[in-house]
């Protein structure tokens, strides 16, 4: 029979937000707090550099790992920003978004039957990525009691000591949780003790408020067992340009590059030109965007407290993760507030274990829309709760 779909593809259920997308399409006054990307446009200098590169006809492939110049800039950038030390020659690979880098890591490291522990709730692509690579997923639920940080207790309870890989994403999508150095230490110890390879998705690293981001790879004995993922989508508002990167020991990066060179060849060239400029001259714009997100974050958290929905102090990314009122499921609440008030939020269970009973609320939206959306949510709560 034609198109006898692979088991791997059939195993993965369709996206949980598809249905909501269709409801949202029926209304023309929807304010979306369901968006996982910045509302800012890419800083103009970076766009201008992309345009200039096109005008100059720079549209050929680049080196598989990305332009050398860009890898050198990335090495300096992560050294200055996060104290990460990687050699541009063979410890950095530039990819079509951090998503590609995560997929490469799964395919480079996962054998059929290998177990990949994933701290959840988290970005929705890890689980399918593991399944596509032939691995087994082990959910490690985090909880509001721990402000959605990953604890050794949670790892032990889930049986992660038996896993081969551990995936974590802090600052976290969807909760907005961050993990301090002190909170990462025991996780690092657990990884060393049980010989876990760590995949640390740090795409929101720059969007850390009230303090600076700590990468787990900077902790003792972790560099040699960690791959760090970052990119230009979030902090530099470049989602559509599709550009990310992975940092890790040469053994891992070379293996990822082997897949990348056959399947992707090289990351988008125009985007690489934009990225070089973004690192060269857009720090001020990034700082300004971070300042804006921080104000919105505080605004949204304040409003949820006023409305009476329980919300923990999210300190990173551009999400907060309020609880739905008693007697509601996240899905019921999200559908209700969309149908009646035209506000789009994502039910937390879409993001895996630990997300049920919560809503992912993105504040990557201008303050006027945020104000209106929160007023509408308040109306909905007043009418129904």
């Amino acid at each position: 029979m034609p198109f006898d779909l692979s088991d791997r593809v059939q195993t993965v259920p369709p996206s949980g937000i598809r249905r909501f997308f269709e409801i949202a399409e029926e209304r023309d006054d929807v304010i979306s707090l369901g968006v996982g990307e910045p509302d800012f446009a890419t800083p103009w200098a970076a766009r201008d550099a992309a345009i200039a590169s096109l005008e100059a006809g720079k549209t050929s492939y680049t080196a598989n790992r990305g332009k050398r110049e860009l890898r050198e800039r990335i090495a300096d950038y992560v050294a200055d920003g996060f104290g990460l030390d990687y050699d541009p020659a063979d410890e950095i690979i530039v990819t079509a978004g951090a998503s590609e880098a995560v997929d490469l890591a799964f395919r480079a490291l996962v054998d059929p039957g290998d177990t990949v522990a994933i701290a959840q709730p988290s970005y929705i692509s890890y689980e399918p990525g593991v399944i596509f690579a032939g691995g087994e997923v082990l959910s490690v639920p985090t909880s509001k009691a721990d402000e959605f940080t990953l604890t050794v207790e949670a790892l032990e309870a889930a049986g992660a000591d038996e896993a081969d890989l551990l995936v974590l994403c802090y600052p976290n999508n969807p909760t907005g949780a961050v993990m301090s150095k002190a909170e990462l230490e025991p996780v690092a110890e657990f990884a060393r003790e049980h010989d876990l390879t760590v995949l640390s998705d740090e795409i929101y690293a720059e969007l850390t408020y009230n303090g600076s981001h700590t990468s787990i790879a900077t902790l003792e004995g972790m560099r040699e067992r960690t791959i760090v993922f970052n990119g230009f989508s979030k902090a530099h508002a470049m989602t559509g340009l599709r550009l990310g990167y992975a940092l890790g020991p040469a053994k891992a990066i070379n293996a990822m590059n082997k897949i990348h060179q056959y399947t992707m060849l090289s990351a988008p060239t125009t985007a690489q030109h934009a990225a070089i400029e973004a690192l060269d001259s857009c720090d001020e714009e990034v700082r300004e965007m971070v300042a804006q997100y921080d104000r919105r974050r505080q605004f949204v958290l304040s409003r949820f407290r006023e409305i009476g929905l329980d919300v923990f102090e999210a300190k990173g990314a551009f999400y907060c993760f309020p609880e739905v009122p008693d007697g509601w499921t996240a899905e019921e609440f999200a559908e209700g507030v969309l149908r009646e008030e035209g506000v789009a939020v994502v039910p937390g269970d879409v993001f895996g274990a630990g997300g049920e009973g919560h809503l992912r609320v993105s504040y990557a939206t201008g303050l006027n829309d945020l104000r209106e959306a929160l007023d509408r949510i308040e109306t909905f709560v007043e009418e129904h709760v």
Partner: protein
Amino acid sequence: MSEREVLELLRENARYSTADIARMTDLEEDEVAAAIDNLEAAGVVRGYQAVIDWDELEEERVRAEVELNVRLDRETGYDDIAERLARFPEVTALRLVSGDYDFDMEVEGDSIREVSQFISEKVAPVPEITQTVTHYVMTSYKENGIEFGDGEEDDRLSYTP
């Protein structure tokens, strides 16, 4: 420090309510109100105005940038001349600048005739003013940091992971 934060927010949008500014910062509403009072009392915040795109209005509004050269003498300094010019309601902005001319003056009126008359009858005759060069504004693309284009439409999908 909190005043600085309030100032930044007012500069972004002077119509933010004190309640909204409090929500966006670590401040209480009464602290925000006090910070604004202090900024006004200290003369840091001198006023609040709308940023208007006159091209979107039916009525004509004529604006001009005027370069002024002046000659100083023992009794008359830049401040004296500026004070005299700034009193005219037609003058919306007046700055001493470096370069080929001394003052950069912005003037507004209801017609070219009105603005021209103002310059020839009220400004040029000031004894210290030696030269005026008037540039009428044809189109404004950006004012006070706000772009006047159609903006960049938000074409993001309503739900993305």
